[in-house]
């Protein structure tokens, strides 16, 4: 681009990069290793570097792989890059199109790689297995038949469930839930380590491990044995992608640049993918902070980050340029001093090997004010009250622009300190937002809807006392609704009657058939019809049996599949099917005041909490229909089959997994509320004020899965006995480094209380008491953070759709309700995809002809 320089663009946005940042942005060839500290502008550097490649080095966006780990991070990369490129466009008038660029989470990009036609034959739309997310993977394995099959394949001996749960580090349990959870963690770890179960069987003499590996092999088989319905899970998806890019040399030349953010969270299979993609050009750039490695439970290991320079030599035969980014632009210097000294508290070297990139973070500006504070009270109750009083003061004095600039962070939201602090804040009239503190199934809307389902369909017996209690509570909630709303009471009664009527009718029809000597598989002919019409069943069913629509359908089938005439079983089931499914019922219920009010509140923007919960309910109901069937037949309703399937199995899964509430990935924190988050959730975020609500997290021994992986893969890794200690330190480091202006720590003392020892010395040296604090350090005028990111709006999907009906738009686009009939969407996709295939095929035909002509 003529006339335009990077410096000019920097000036435009007041970005004054330091020397290291400049070097990193200007580096355009060969491997690059950026070791970054918190708040060092690492993502910003990646984005400017990508802009540099596109705008000044003529690299087309399609030739760049820009990946990260979380969806939030991916959103920032995509939209941040769009924003920077728009800056350049403003200057030159030349726009850039990144719609085809591989930018997103590793999983998203893997999925897109699998769809790329050039990795197959250039023409065909490659088939992609159906992706099971965490919940579906659990449901997939928790089915009795599948689980039994895996256990048999493993040949675990007398008590398979007990053996598995004990072996994988839990307490011995006979519960199916805990067995499935343990198996999933083992399977996923195997997939992330690319373990081939058959190949490693020989490496162990441990009988239980052998059995687990056999069960894993069986799991892989069950995923792919049905050629029409192939499955994969989040961990295996990456293996599919890896196999696809290694199948031909094309995989090495798809991209000119491979750029990965948050590289400390990379697992072994992801590492293989990155190096394979970069093999052609050797342009691989990774950025990360080993101190913020938090995703070990997903198979990620910080070793991959620490070993990056070695791997470049090993795989690419090239040395990586190393640039440290250690200037912190986020936090006041007192906060930086605090976490620097916190990390010095333990020894990161073991037997001469360092397990931390050596670094000291430097605050961009020195500042003498004290910005780390502790409440004077140390018993939890009074400390909570003191902190709440202080927070109220910050809000009242307008030290923050909105309460959502103050975050409360915890290692886990299940600790009693969470409730205590929350209560203390609420007592002072401050609202809290805790997206994962509640389980979804306990929210008011879930109790109402599922309670009404219990009244309508009946309640099964269940062996789990907690779940029984939940059902009782839900049913009581619904009974209250029914008492208060006569129309709803009548509706529930109508539905109950309808169900009884259909089940009765089915029994009568079945008897009539037996009397006529007919079986389920007999063809539905005049004799069968006459027999059925003799039964005394409701008029509605008789009309159907003798009606035109059935005759037309039979005729239609006869023409299509003359070899398979309609059977008696089909007609019976069809005649006694409810004409609504669980998702229809949900929408019907929204007509009643108690649930309708959620929509009314959202329509004018008063409160979006209730509608978000309803949307999630619709999603779970749609998933249930996918698992079973959208139509409920009388055979499914009889003998408690349906209620066993819907309540005892499906809702019980949601209950046991403790599925969380609705989360909006783009807009995480509602205004006016103080976020309560786990430290994991806070990763990548920054807050003006951080309150760390619990300074205790115990170290535990080596984890079984790490031991197994080390034994089977035999790779160098962190010393198993130190892993937990390192992890706890890193977790707290993430929490401490989220704070921009003020950090409040809550050390609780006294009976049953403990503080992790590594906090003591830094607190002694750097912290002052809340009461003595100079509040001028918390300055609402001072800007920090990324600012709002522009969103894409589609002409048809957003503009036209909103113009037709804002309310329908709200339902499907804003809150993602599951539509009860997906006909229109599927129809459109099917037609468009097929026409796209036709076009591509015609293009390939023409090119082929042209090449042939050129040859002759």
């Amino acid at each position, binding site marked *: 681009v003529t006339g335009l320089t990077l410096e000019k663009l920097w000036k435009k946005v007041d970005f004054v990069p330091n020397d290291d940042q400049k070097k990193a942005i200007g580096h355009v060839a060969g491997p690059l290793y950026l070791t970054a500290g918190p708040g060092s502008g690492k993502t910003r550097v990646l984005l400017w570097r990508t802009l540099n490649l596109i705008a000044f080095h003529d690299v087309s966006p399609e030739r760049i792989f820009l990946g990260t780990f979380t969806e939030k991070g991916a959103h920032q990369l995509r939209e941040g890059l769009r924003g920077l490129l728009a800056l350049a466009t403003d200057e030159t008038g030349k*726009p850039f199109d990144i719609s085809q660029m591989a930018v997103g989470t590793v999983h998203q990009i893997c999925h897109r790689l699998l769809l790329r036609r050039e990795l197959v034959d250039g023409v065909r739309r490659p088939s992609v297995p159906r992706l099971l997310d965490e919940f579906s993977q659990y449901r997939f394995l928790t089915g009795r038949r599948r689980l039994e099959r895996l256990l048999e394949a493993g040949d675990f001996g007398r008590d398979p469930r007990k053996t598995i749960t004990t072996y994988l580090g839990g307490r011995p349990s006979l519960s199916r839930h805990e067995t499935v959870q343990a198996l999933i963690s083992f399977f996923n770890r195997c997939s992330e380590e690319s373990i081939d179960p058959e190949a490693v069987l020989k490496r162990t003499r441990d009988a239980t491990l052998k059995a687990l590996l056999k069960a894993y092999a069986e799991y892989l088989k069950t995923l792919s044995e049905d050629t029409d319905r192939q499955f994969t899970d989040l961990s295996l998806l990456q293996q599919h992608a890896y196999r696809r890019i290694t199948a031909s040399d094309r995989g090495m030349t798809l991209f000119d640049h491979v750029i990965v953010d948050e590289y400390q969270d990379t697992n072994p299979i992801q590492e293989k993918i990155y190096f394979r993609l970069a093999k052609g050009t050797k342009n691989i750039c990774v950025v990360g902070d080993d101190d913020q490695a938090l995703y070990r439970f997903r198979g990620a290991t910080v070793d991959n980050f620490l070993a990056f320079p070695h791997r470049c030599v090993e795989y690419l035969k090239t040395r990586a340029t190393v640039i440290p980014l250690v200037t912190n632009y986020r936090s006041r210097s007192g906060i930086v001093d605090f976490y620097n000294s916190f990390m010095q508290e333990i020894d990161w070297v073991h037997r001469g090997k360092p397990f931390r990139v050596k670094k000291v973070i430097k605050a961009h500006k020195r500042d003498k004010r004290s910005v780390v504070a502790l409440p004077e009270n140390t018993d939890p109750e009074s400390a909570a009250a003191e902190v709440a009083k202080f927070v109220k003061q910050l809000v009242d004095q307008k030290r923050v622009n909105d309460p959502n600039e103050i975050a409360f962070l915890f290692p886990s939201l299940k600790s009693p300190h969470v409730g205590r602090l929350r209560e203390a804040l609420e007592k002072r009239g401050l609202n809290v937002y805790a997206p994962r503190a509640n389980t979804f199934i306990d929210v008011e809307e879930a109790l109402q809807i599922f309670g009404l389902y219990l009244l309508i369909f009946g309640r099964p017996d269940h062996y789990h006392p907690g779940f029984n209690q939940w059902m009782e509570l839900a049913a009581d909630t619904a009974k209250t609704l029914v008492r208060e709303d006569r129309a709803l009471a009548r509706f529930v009664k109508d539905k109950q009657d309808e169900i009884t009527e259909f089940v009765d009718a089915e029994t009568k029809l079945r008897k009539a058939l037996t009397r006529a000597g007919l079986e389920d598989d007999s063809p539905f002919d005049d004799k069968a019809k006459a027999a059925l019409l003799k039964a005394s069943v409701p008029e509605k069913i008789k009309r159907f049996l003798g009606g035109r629509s059935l005759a037309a359908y039979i005729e239609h089938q006869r023409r299509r599949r003359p070899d398979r005439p309609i059977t008696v079983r089909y007609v019976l089931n069809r005649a006694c099917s409810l004409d*609504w499914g669980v998702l229809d019922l949900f929408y019907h219920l929204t*007509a009643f005041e108690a649930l309708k009010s959620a929509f009314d509140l959202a329509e004018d923007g008063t409160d979006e909490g209730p509608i978000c919960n309803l949307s999630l309910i619709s999603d779970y109901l749609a*998933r249930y229909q996918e698992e079973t069937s*959208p139509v409920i037949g009388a055979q499914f309703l009889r003998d408690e089959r349906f209620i066993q399937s819907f309540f005892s199995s499906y809702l019980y899964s949601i209950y046991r997994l403790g599925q969380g509430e609705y989360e909006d990935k783009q807009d995480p924190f509602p205004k006016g509320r103080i976020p309560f988050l786990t430290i994991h959730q806070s990763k990548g975020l920054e807050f003006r004020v951080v309150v760390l609500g619990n300074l205790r997290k115990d170290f535990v021994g080596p984890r079984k899965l790490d031991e197994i992986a080390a034994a089977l893969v035999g790779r160098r890794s962190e010393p198993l006995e130190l892993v937990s200690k390192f992890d706890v330190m890193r977790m707290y480091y993430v929490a401490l480094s989220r704070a921009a202006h003020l950090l409040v720590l809550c050390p609780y003392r006294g009976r049953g209380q403990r503080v992790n020892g590594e906090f003591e010395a830094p607190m002694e040296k750097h912290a002052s008491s809340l009461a003595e604090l100079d509040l001028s350090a918390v300055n609402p005028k001072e800007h920090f953070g990324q600012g709002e990111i522009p969103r894409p*709006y589609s002409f048809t999907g957003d503009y036209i759709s*909103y113009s037709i*009906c804002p309310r329908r*738009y709200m339902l499907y686009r804003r809150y993602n309700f599951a539509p009860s009939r997906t006909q229109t969407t599927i129809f459109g996709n099917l037609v468009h995809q097929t026409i796209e295939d036709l076009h591509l095929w015609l293009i390939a035909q023409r090119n082929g002809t042209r090449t042939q002509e050129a040859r002759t």
Partner: protein
Amino acid sequence: MTEEQVLQHIREFFDANYRQILAAGGAHILTPRALEQARQQVEHYWKKMRDIATSVTETEVRLQLPNQKTPKGRTFVIEGVVDLVREADRIRMYDIKTHYCGEVAKNLESYSAQLNVYAYVWRELRGNAVHEMGVIAVQLPGSLREAIREGRIEDIRAELEQWNPLVPIPFTDSSLDGVFKRIAETVDKIEDGEFAPPAVKKLREVAGADSGRTGAGLTFATLHCRNCDGRFSCDSYREYALNARPRGKQFDLRRYLDIAVDDGELDDWIDGNIELDTDRLMSDT
């Protein structure tokens, strides 16, 4: 390549895509009638629009124009998807829709705004102008579908002859500022959370043309509300369906539900989705 070979390929693509959609979406399957209609649309796209189909050079191109500003100062990106024919010195742009051409003609203004915006975005992004554009509305007219269903060969030929799925879209002389302004205002409304439904008056207005033989007008409610799950909790639809104030004392919710539930395609939906293997449903418990 013979005609039959091409059609054979189309069928293969179609079946593979449907299998993939089924595998991805579980049990949400199309009714037999809808499936047949989708197949017809694709096959007839080829039969009627062969000249365009064989000359398309880029398909399903996603266009994104960044750096748009709303009146309230938000920044956003405009997106759209088109098919393109690039010849030596000319560019043609098409948007394929599963709509009926009569309906496109009836709402020409809206379609025209859309394609003119896309052409503008294309010029902005790629620096060259579009020379011709059109909407290809692949839904078959009702009379043609009927002729096919009843196998009346002569009528099919005549109907096919008469049907033109391509609706050419003229370039507007006026500036697009008005359209861009409306888009930007819409973005503000969405971000501000304004989601009230249209007034009942709009629901009663004629909003589209029936693809059937009569070509009669369809009300907004028939066209848009009947497939919307929001109708059960929607004040405007209540007033439309019962001709009564939705919150008045006489409001009969039971009658309302009867009206609202009937979506006209219920039997088809059950036929398409019925699960015969009750044992499969039970494998989870």
